[in-house]
């Protein structure tokens, strides 16, 4: 680790629903350009963790700090989801949440929303500035579609897409918000082996091109092991292990946690 604070630092994060401790005293760090995987049996609290990061839930205790190089650190917990997205965290959803009645392109254009400012008057008068901005948004969105190789669907309604493409579109939409950290919630869920391996390559590409760090929740161990620089293992809302794929592979705690499940 460098002396300068990591990009994302989560400390002592806890989330309690009523009596139930969903997360307990969680520690996590993400460095610039890192790919960090978050694994653990179902119900370990991985998605809850994402929801806390992105402001869907406000954590009961703990801190989430985002330190972008050349910027003053920002405390994320307690902010509204949209503010957090503006700060540079973008996510995908485990159960796909596209805008079904909008076209693929429009879905991505929505992602650009928070990076532009055209107001009501602009929209009505549609002056050169606004027109330029619109053109710009379309161009950027289309570019993203191209890089994710789904541009041929640009004008189809999102609801009409095949499953795999929907997952990719979720990523595209997230990228459009110009994040520094991309949170992927089970991106490989429901994909066939071929698609999965494509995804593997795609994620690496995305890291290169957009210079983002990536945190992903995933059950597909093969993918996790091949992709991640570091892995955090969660169980019952607590962090039971962390380390490089190598270390995790033969970590006793992990194996017991996964006992019964086949760890690829």
């Amino acid at each position, binding site marked *: 680790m460098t002396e300068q604070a990591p990009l994302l630092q989560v400390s002592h994060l806890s989330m309690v629903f009523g009596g139930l401790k969903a997360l307990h005293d969680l520690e996590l760090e993400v460095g610039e350009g890192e790919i960090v995987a978050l694994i653990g049996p179902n119900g370990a609290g991985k998605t809850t963790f994402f929801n806390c990061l*992105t*402001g*869907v839930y406000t954590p009961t205790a703990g801190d989430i700090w985002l330190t972008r190089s050349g910027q003053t650190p920002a405390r994320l917990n307690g902010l*509204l*989801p*949209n503010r957090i*997205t*503006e700060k540079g965290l*973008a*996510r995908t*959803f485990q159960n796909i*949440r*596209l*805008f*079904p*009645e*909008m*076209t693929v*392109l*429009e879905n991505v*254009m*929505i*992602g650009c*929303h*928070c*990076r*532009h400012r*055209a*107001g*009501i008057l*602009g*929209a*009505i008068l*549609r002056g050169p500035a*606004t027109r330029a*901005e*619109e*053109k*710009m*948004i*379309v*161009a*950027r969105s*289309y*570019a*993203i579609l*191209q*890089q994710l190789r789904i*541009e041929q669907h*640009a*004008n189809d*309604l999102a609801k009409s897409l095949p499953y795999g493409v929907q997952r990719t579109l979720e990523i595209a*939409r997230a990228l*459009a*918000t110009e994040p520094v950290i991309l949170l992927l919630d089970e991106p490989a869920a429901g994909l066939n082996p071929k698609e999965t391996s494509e995804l593997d390559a795609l994620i690496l590409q995305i890291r290169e*091109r957009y210079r983002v760090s990536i945190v992903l929740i995933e059950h597909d161990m093969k993918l996790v092991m091949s992709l991640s620089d570091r892995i955090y293992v969660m169980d019952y809302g607590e962090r039971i292990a962390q380390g490089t794929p190598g270390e995790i592979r033969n970590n006793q705690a992990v194996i017991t946690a996964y006992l019964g499940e086949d760890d690829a």
Partner: protein
Amino acid sequence: MLAELKKAMLVAVWFMFLTLPILVVKVNPIEQKVVWRWANLALVGLAAFVLTLAGRYYGRHKTELAKYWPEFHPLLAHPALKRFFLAIIALLAALFPLFFSSYQINIMTTALMYAVLGLGLNIVVGLAGLLDLGYVAFYAVGAYSYALLNYHFGLGFWAALPIGGLLAAMFGIALGFPVLRLRGDYLAIVTLGFGEIIRLILENWNDFSFGPSGIAGIPRPGFFGMTLSVDNAICYLYYLVLLLGLLTIFVVNRLRDSRIGRAWIALREDEIACQAMGIDKTRTKLTAFALGASWAGMVGVLFAAKTTFINPASFTFLESAIILAIVVLGGMGSTVGVVIGALVFILLPEYLRAFADYRMLLFGMIMVGVMVFRPQGIIGTSRRRSYPLPDMDLGKEAGHD
């Protein structure tokens, strides 16, 4: 076939049973007199029988028959055709007053006013997906702001028009704040309550609104200072409303296809994903409420100027329901749909006058009928906007930043 008849028979019997007390027996509790009108029973039976057969026939041949229903999208999609149609309509609209009596002009004006109302509500309901059953409140705000400003400060129509819109927008925001957290039908009932509250206040707060006896003698819009005769004023108003209508269509379409419009639709589609994409839910909702309300406000001013008299009775829940019906019946989110919806809904009862007492009965029937046979509205709603796609290299360099 026999089965068909049998089924129809059963339905007929059922309806005869259903209407037995209310349609057949007419009681006069005062004189303790009872009149039996068996003829009605036979009528109902017959009608039910025939209609069932027809309905089942339709059911069986739905697909074939559906073909005969004009599909509007292709027509509207084709740019040349579209322009042609628009030209025709524009011509008709412009020349309308020359060929029709001032009564016809008058009701057409009313219809156009409702078209504008519909388009305004469409922003809230159709685009942003916020079910608003109290829209009439903003209409009332507009009407009363003109009436009162004119009464107290002698403010003219043209001054009142923007003020009315502005005030309505403010009320829109005022309503928006408390209901931000509410979803779907909870929002619906709260907005309904809001509408009722406004009406009740107008009804009871005499010192402010002159109560139920309303405000009379509101001046019609002057025409460069000169006051017009009623006939001319009616024409003049027609053109004013026509202009306002065009303006509305222009503005609403532009909004819909803008960054803000997209945000509204996204909000309608999925609030959580919408926020996750960095869209400010609060602001988006409030702009929708405000922009929707402002149109109601302006039409309200026009309404006051048109009837020259207003009282709270004109702003009941039924009005909100009708405006909503216009939006849905026309086809949510579709501009053309809303306009057609308004024409149908406002002209229909007027032309049903021929049926005198039966008109509201038929009106209700038609409302149900259209919904049952055409749930997506007269003009369907599928709104798909394809953007001119940039060529590759542009896309590439755009991608690099």
